């Protein structure tokens, strides 16, 4: 074991902690952004530090340091216990560590993201050339006033140890890329993105993941679509219609209306002041119809290329797959050791910290909708009157995860089983369980994509988590659209 980890654990125990864990994290990130033909950003970020979490009389304390020497580890551990004692002083008598956390966790081993090519071995010039080629394609469309192309690569080395005997080491790689074109004219501003919005598609993968996106090969198309949207018909106003939602937009729908709703800390009120709570309260577990029988959702931290894929979570629990929604019924939460113990359940390993200087929180791993059996062509042909929605543009949901409203970059009219004209500024809104109960068809595995969501905010101090969501396109009946106007 790294001596500074041993120092931190020993100090925490010596100061009275009943349980402590330590994470030593080294994060390297490279980000390249080309805006309007020039390199706006080419950065190499490095962040290294150690965080100590200590439990005293049923209350938690956490402290961190970037001073990676025994003295720094000793100070951080001592401070974590001091803070835990201050918490305990206000909270009063608390549970023992065993009653609070359940059985001990003593995982051992190491894990590295399977990759083809280490992105940090690829020449910067090659990365730059890939982005400039995509930018050139977008620049060929005169109505496009703003262009952006970017790639991101991350390598994070984490070592976790606790006072129960766990010792695990992981090296996680991430790779991502995307392009975005904004067109202005006709009193409108319209944006199109590829492979998805929010900057890029991202996964736990190597350089090959970005190459396979073929950014340059798709850049001209999305730029032309942005220009075409300037004069497209607006989305119909205030009607209900059938929607076929593309895979990337549906991924965010899952993230907001299912993923966050099944975080057990929210359901227990721990996030009430910021992210909110959840309508999926513990009394509804195994006794609530969340969606139609077509809706099957899992939390799977073993999915290939998922941003929620790892060897162990930040409490040392091994990666695993568990059911969240089965045949439409609500059957599972995302859990930590402490929250799961409150329900008399074992944790399913969803504690994740965004950095060495943040505590682990319950976070999504890869929360995905299982594929159905339809082909997309058959599903469109089976729809008399509706809209096909692609690529998220805006997203909002209430603090209990009931009332949502999404906008997408583009809509396409469906008439008599065929795709028709483009529609600009499409939006749709609904109530979560009503919406998922209206799902009557999910496309098959050939349409299924695991989408990265690398900007999931939660916690105070704030943390940004990297999660993924796999989906195929799916159909939803009688949804209200056109709420912007």
């Amino acid at each position, binding site marked *: 074991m790294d001596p500074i980890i041993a120092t931190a654990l020993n100090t925490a125990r010596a100061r009275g902690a009943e349980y402590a864990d330590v994470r030593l994290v080294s994060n390297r990130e490279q980000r390249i952004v080309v805006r309007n033909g020039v390199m706006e950003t080419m950065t190499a970020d490095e962040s*290294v530090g150690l965080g100590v979490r200590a439990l005293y009389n049923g209350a938690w304390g956490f402290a*961190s340091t970037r001073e990676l020497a025994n003295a720094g580890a000793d100070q951080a551990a001592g401070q974590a216990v001091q803070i835990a004692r201050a918490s305990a002083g206000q909270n009063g008598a608390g549970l023992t560590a065993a009653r609070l956390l359940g059985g001990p966790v003593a995982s051992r081993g190491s894990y590295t993201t399977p990759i083809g090519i280490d992105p940090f071995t690829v020449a910067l010039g090659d990365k730059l050339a890939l982005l400039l080629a995509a930018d050139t394609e977008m620049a060929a469309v005169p109505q496009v006033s703003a262009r952006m192309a970017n790639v991101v690569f991350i390598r994070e080395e984490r070592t976790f140890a606790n006072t129960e005997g766990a010792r695990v080491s992981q090296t996680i790689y991430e790779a991502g890329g995307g392009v975005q074109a904004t067109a202005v004219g006709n009193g409108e501003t319209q944006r199109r993105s590829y492979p998805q919005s929010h900057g890029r598609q991202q996964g736990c993968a190597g350089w090959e993941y970005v190459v396979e996106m073929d950014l340059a090969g798709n850049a001209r198309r999305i730029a032309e679509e942005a220009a075409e949207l300037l004069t497209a018909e607006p989305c119909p106003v205030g009607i209900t219609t059938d929607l076929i939602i593309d895979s990337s937009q549906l991924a965010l729908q899952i993230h907001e209306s299912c993923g966050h709703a099944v975080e057990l800390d929210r359901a227990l009120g721990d996030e009430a002041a910021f992210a909110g709570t959840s309508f999926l309260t513990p009394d509804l577990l195994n006794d609530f119809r969340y969606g139609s029988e077509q809706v099957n959702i899992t939390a799977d931290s073993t999915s290939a290329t998922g941003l929620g894929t790892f060897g162990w979570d930040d409490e040392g629990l091994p990666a695993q797959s568990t059911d969240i929604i089965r045949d439409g019924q609500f059957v599972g939460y995302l859990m930590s050791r402490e929250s799961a113990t409150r329900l008399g359940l074992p944790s399913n390993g969803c504690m994740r910290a965004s950095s060495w200087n943040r505590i682990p929180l319950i976070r999504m791993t890869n929360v995905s909708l299982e594929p159905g059996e339809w082909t997309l062509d058959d599903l469109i042909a089976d729809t008399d009157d509706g809209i096909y929605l692609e690529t998220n543009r805006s997203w909002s949901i*209430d603090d209990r995860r009931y009332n949502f409203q999404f906008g997408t970059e583009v809509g396409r009219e469906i008439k008599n089983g065929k795709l028709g004209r483009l529609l600009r500024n499409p939006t749709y809104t609904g109530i979560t369980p009503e919406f998922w109960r209206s799902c009557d068809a999910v496309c098959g595995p050939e349409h299924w994509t695991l989408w990265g969501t690398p900007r999931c905010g939660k916690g105070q101090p704030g943390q940004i988590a990297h999660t993924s969501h796999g989906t195929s396109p799916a159909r939803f009946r009688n949804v209200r659209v056109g709420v912007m106007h």
Partner: protein
Amino acid sequence: MLGPDHIRSLLRDALRNLHLGDADIYLTATTQALTRFANNRIHQNVYHDDAVAHIRVAYQKRQGRAVTNNLSFDGLRAAVLQAREHAGLMPEDPDFPGLPSASQAASVHAYDEATANAGPEHRAAIVGTVCRKAADARLEAAGFYRTGVTELAVFSTRGPRYSYHAGTFAGLLITARSEDSAGWSKGGGWRMGEIDAEALADEAIGKAVRGRNPQDLEPGDYPVVLEHYAVDDMLEALSFYGMGAQMVQDGRSWMCGALGQPAMSPLVSIWDDGLDPAGWPVPFDAEGVPRSRVEIVADGVVQGPVHNSYTAAKAGLASTGHQRGATGGPTATNLFMRPGIRSTEQLIASVDKGLYITRFYYTRLAHNRGCVMTGMTRDGTFVIENGELTTPVKNLRFTQSYVDALAGCQALSDTAHLNLNEAGVAMHVPAALLESWRFTGQTV
């Protein structure tokens, strides 16, 4: 704290004798302790500090960057050389004006010793006060109390020049909840002594008690009185979606087509001032350029955006000192909105039928023209009838142009409050009476 002299020597030594062309280092060092509570007990309690150096090297219309939290001589030197290597790989950017020339920012006092030295026992005691009051009212309290110090420094070879600022921060945020209602309050600034924990607890508790048994309300257009928390959301959105010159130059800002136009009510004046101690002062930006006071909206007329050195050069202007981080565009983060002449109670009393909104939640841009936002009300939404708050209502969804809403501003309260968020964005705003707000849905 690292302190001004230590940081200066670190940054100066890192750039010494390298003959790189021009270079600057923007260093941010933050120490934060945050005690978080929920269900009337402390459940998370954390301390962290970090210091991050953002290095930029520029020559021949090229610039390269690197970032590190390794502040040893070797760590900083390695990052500087990496930034130099990156610059060499860049294509020339004909619009890059080079690093800003030397100019010294005014110093502004925003450091409070007591806030800097607050310990976990102090924070726990404040939280204990809040939780006990909530429990006495049969409510569950959640929120946080935080204290800390931020140091900012820029060392540039252009001059050479060095700018340093240390500011403290403190904040108390409270949500009080019953089974069917919630109330909210938030206070903070750079002096923890100005936070009245008991008053903030009473404010949140009062809303939660009054909000019990909320009723349905038909969505539609209603006059609204927005508490300063909701007005804070409006200004923050208007800032991030259009007060920066990069967004204007790209055609993505709500200002596009509105510059010089009376887009808002004559009652509305908005400006950015990084030197005003009533806000959360930051006297220079990430390029070391002194922050200028910038009039964004004057008497309802849109004046213009804030600039960094790059956007200013493109526009033929001088930077206003608003480069917020090492990368990205310029941003207005020290905003003030001119108060009115009536109390919030008088604003309510002037409404025959409308809604009183405590705050907005999960607001997102739906369309950039007019800054159309969608979001929810939260933590205290009430009907106003005949000039008085009456029935609490379930939270409502809105889809509303913030520019259009401010065009219908009928009055502003005579008191403005500082709303300082975790990211260091400070809005000093009053409550507002708006002629119309479009509610497009309701939650369960």
